[in-house]
């Protein structure tokens, strides 16, 4: 509870600061670049002219520094970046993501003269960050991350108890409910679709879909350009994924009775190698034929899994699940963090996205939990499932499964739900990617 209050308190303070201080509070220090591009007065002769030239040079140098260009927006984002780093180190909340994103936020919000042609900003064509960011805007990084996820995920628990896959579908309720919510709050359908996918609790999927639907490039039916919401959506998705241990337990306790929480599930059966090999092949063919738009994500997920399960491509699988995914995670986290440049990120839309994202996560969790309860109505006594595993239907692998396990242990110290929860958890990855594909095919 204390953690929850800390985190949401900080978010509320930041939101309040951004409301109170207009983002251009300090911009009066910025000068016209044309004036600055003029050469400093050259000393022709005499000590006085030398002194003037030196002072002019110093003044010009100062005008290029961060101190002269800082705005309240930069300072707010600096605090946000530091909070991300703090949460990762102090509470161990998704440190592999929050550290690169936090540092990215610091890098992306170093104040500099925007129009001086320094080619520093992530949105300035030709800058190093812009080249790295291309992987985000073109949707290159998320499929590579999915390749790594496929190569490191063991789908045995899902194969041994396929009915748990439906929980992964039920939890996608958050995606579509938030889509409607975003529409009511005035977002364009394409933007609303990108915001809704936050409920899928899958960072790469959220980035992939927002890079296609809300990229600041596409022209809408009314002739206007779609807003660039990649930064806020990615930050919201990863923030809430990191906050799964805070968001989910209260909803679990609210919706699941004590009696239901102690249900012991049957141990998963052993899965043969043939089944493990068939799983990615059949999964790829079925999902891609029904929703081809999800192919970049699911194609790579199942490809990575086949590399793992085939048993003959160990080197490729090892690379995909270690070095490759690590490299892309570093670049993805850093660039997504840097894309939160204050002038783009600190808008009322970002705050709405954060609110909608939280709602989306809660609805998704509730959807999974309630569907698990419904499933129990039709299952025999020995096949009953512990409804807590429904919460793992939001993807957030493996955090939500871990949360389910911990909550299960609280109710019954001998009830280990981790392996059971992994089934809806990985089904959630497939479900959110399918949902992204459907939204893409409808709204692009």
């Amino acid at each position, binding site marked *: 509870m204390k953690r929850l209050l800390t985190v949401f308190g900080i978010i509320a303070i930041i939101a309040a600061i951004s409301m109170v201080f207009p983002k251009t509070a300090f911009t009066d220090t910025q000068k016209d670049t044309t004036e600055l591009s003029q050469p400093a007065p050259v000393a022709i002769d005499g000590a006085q002219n030398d002194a003037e030239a030196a002072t002019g040079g110093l003044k010009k140098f100062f005008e290029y520094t961060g101190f002269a260009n800082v705005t309240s927006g930069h300072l707010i984002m600096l605090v946000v970046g530091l909070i991300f780093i703090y949460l990762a180190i102090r509470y161990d909340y998704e440190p592999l993501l929050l550290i690169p994103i936090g540092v990215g936020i610091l890098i992306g919000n170093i104040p500099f003269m925007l129009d001086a042609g320094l080619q520093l900003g992530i949105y300035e064509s030709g800058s190093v960050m812009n080249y790295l960011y291309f992987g985000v805007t073109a949707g290159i990084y998320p499929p590579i991350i999915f390749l790594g996820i496929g190569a490191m995920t063991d789908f045995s628990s899902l194969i041994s108890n396929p009915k748990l896959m439906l929980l992964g579908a039920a939890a996608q309720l958050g995606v579509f409910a938030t*889509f409607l919510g975003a529409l009511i709050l005035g977002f364009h359908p394409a933007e609303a679709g990108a915001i809704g996918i936050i409920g899928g609790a899958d960072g790469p999927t959220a980035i992939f879909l927002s890079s296609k639907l809300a990229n600041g490039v596409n022209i809408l039916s009314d002739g206007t350009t779609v807003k660039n919401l990649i930064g806020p959506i990615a930050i919201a998705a990863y923030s809430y994924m990191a906050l799964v241990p805070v968001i989910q337990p209260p909803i679990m306790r609210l919706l699941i009775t004590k009696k239901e929480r102690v249900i012991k599930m049957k141990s998963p059966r*052993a899965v043969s190698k043939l*089944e493990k090999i068939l*799983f990615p092949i059949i999964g790829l063919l079925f*999902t891609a034929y*029904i929703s081809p738009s999800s192919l970049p994500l699911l194609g790579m997920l199942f490809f990575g899994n086949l590399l793992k399960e085939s048993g003959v491509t160990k080197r490729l699988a090892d690379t995909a699940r270690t070095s490759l995914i690590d490299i892309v995670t570093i670049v993805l986290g850093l660039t997504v963090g840097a894309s939160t440049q204050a002038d783009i990120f600190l808008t009322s839309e970002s705050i709405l996205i954060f609110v909608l994202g939280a709602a989306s996560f809660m609805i998704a969790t509730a959807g999974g939990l309630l569907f698990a309860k419904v499933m129990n109505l039709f299952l025999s006594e020995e096949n009953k499932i512990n409804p807590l595993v429904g919460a793992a239907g939001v993807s957030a692998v493996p955090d939500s499964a871990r949360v389910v396990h911990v909550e299960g242990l609280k109710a019954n110290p001998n009830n280990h739900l981790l392996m059971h929860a992994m089934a809806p958890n990985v089904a959630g990855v497939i479900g959110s990617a*399918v949902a992204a594909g459907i939204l893409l095919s409808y709204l692009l």
Partner: protein
Amino acid sequence: MIINMIIINKILDFSAINAFTTSVAIVGYVIVFLVLLLLTLVYNLIPKIIAFNVRRRRKKQGKCDDCEIADTEGDVTAAITMALYMHLNEIHDEDSNGITIRRVSKQYSPWSSKIYATNPFVRI
């Protein structure tokens, strides 16, 4: 109250919920469900097909007429596998069971010499 209504009407745009957006939400959710339901059915079927093939093959080989393929639980399989692995690799405890202290060949040492422990000055 009226002000609240105005604010709500200004912020919340319910006209955006039209036939198209509603169908995106409903059809989208139903498709996600159908995809995963289909996969559930297929993956339920696969072990049965595999078991059927194994039974048929064994029947052909004459190993058994009415073979039942039991679904072993994963943890049982893991325990059996571990036991077999350890047996085949003989890495379980194998020692002589001798727990006595081995005698050293060099028996005399000044440290164990009795002469050093006695007092040469006898008290009269």
